[in-house]
């Protein structure tokens, strides 16, 4: 069960890192290009540490690369939010903010995990995420409180993404077991702090927090939107075409 939980933890940063990596050389400004690439790198580092650990827990000889490149989409356990397309810059930054605001609470709590490896990864990730959320929050405010055009785009992004935020806080038997063993916080307990941060940033961004719609769910269980398959096809094509390829 810990294996399952660690995969869930690792798959979201992996997928989000791949998304941001796809923006390299395409961001609206040079500084933003560099920033997105660096956030992607931090996320990839977190994913690597977690997938390596998952491989050890599983004990079947799979390493981080096997888990990243040789699983099908139904075996990925990432949140649906992070697999939503980059869209325009507003959607990229809003998706980032909604995830960062969740990740900062998650890593903060996981530092007290009864599992030493998870606590160690969280101890590093929480510091990195503090920078990520500061920057993504700043962009949400700038876009929402910017021009008519930027506000219009941010509103559209919110309409696209909000339905995927409910899943962040849904729990199942795996979450319950992890919470009981002191391995991880119960995701539902992270919601109040997330909401407080989101509401405060949205106020500055002149965005209304939408009514909570029926949450889209399934990512943690391997039921994904159609976007994940396309993303994985691109991410996995090289190692699958040339198994064992090395630099």
């Amino acid at each position, binding site marked *: 069960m810990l294996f399952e939980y660690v995969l869930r933890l690792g798959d979201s940063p992996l997928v989000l890192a791949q998304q941001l990596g796809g923006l390299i050389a395409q961001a609206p400004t040079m*500084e933003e290009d*560099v920033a997105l690439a660096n956030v992607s790198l931090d996320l990839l580092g977190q994913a690597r540490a977690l997938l390596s650990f998952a491989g050890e827990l599983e004990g079947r000889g799979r390493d981080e690369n096997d888990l990243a490149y040789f699983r099908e989409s139904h075996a990925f356990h990432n949140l649906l939010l992070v697999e939503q397309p980059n869209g325009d810059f507003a959607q990229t930054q809003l998706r980032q903010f909604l995830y960062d605001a969740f990740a900062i609470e998650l890593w903060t709590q996981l530092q007290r995990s009864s599992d030493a490896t998870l*606590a160690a990864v969280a*101890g*590093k990730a929480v510091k*990195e995420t503090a*920078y990520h959320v500061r920057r993504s929050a700043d962009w949400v405010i700038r876009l929402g409180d910017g021009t008519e055009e930027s506000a219009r785009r941010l509103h559209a992004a919110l309409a696209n993404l909000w339905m995927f935020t409910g899943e962040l806080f849904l729990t199942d038997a795996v979450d319950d077991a992890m919470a009981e063993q002191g391995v991880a916080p119960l995701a539902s307990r992270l919601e109040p702090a997330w909401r407080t941060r989101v509401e405060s940033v949205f106020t500055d961004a002149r965005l209304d927090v939408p009514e909570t719609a029926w949450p889209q769910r399934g990512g943690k269980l391997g039921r994904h939107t159609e976007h994940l398959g396309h993303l994985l096809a691109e991410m996995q094509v090289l190692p699958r075409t040339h198994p064992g390829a090395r630099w």
Partner: protein
Amino acid sequence: MSATVREVWSVLDQVPDPEIPVVSVVDLGIVRDVSVHDAAVEVTITPTYTGCPATAPIRSDIEAALRLRFGPVNVRVSLAPAWTTDWITPRGKQRLAAYGIAPPNPTGNRPKQCPQCGSNETELLSEFGSTPCKALYRCRACREPFDYFKCL
């Protein structure tokens, strides 16, 4: 060849960081522990950021430098306690500044001064600079952009 712990540290102090070669891996506080055993020299390092691409080259640079002098080497990578910029030595901070990178400044987490002209009139251009560990600033006095090594 047998070694003393002190000799190992002094060789490590000659191993440059691959991305900022004016500072050594010791200056950066990446080396956390050194021990000498009959069979091998053991070194524990910690990555700066989890995704820092320099971790792998740093590891192999350390192995190469020590093997040359002392024979078998074990390099362990440890994540906890998490690396902090507080571990950068005073000499490391001086070297960063001389190289044009404003060293981490825990007071307010912004550069104390422009590493080019020394002015304290600086402004943030981007939270991320050429690597995740740096932010991009500009000096309002000399108008030059520069990297700031962020507190972590």
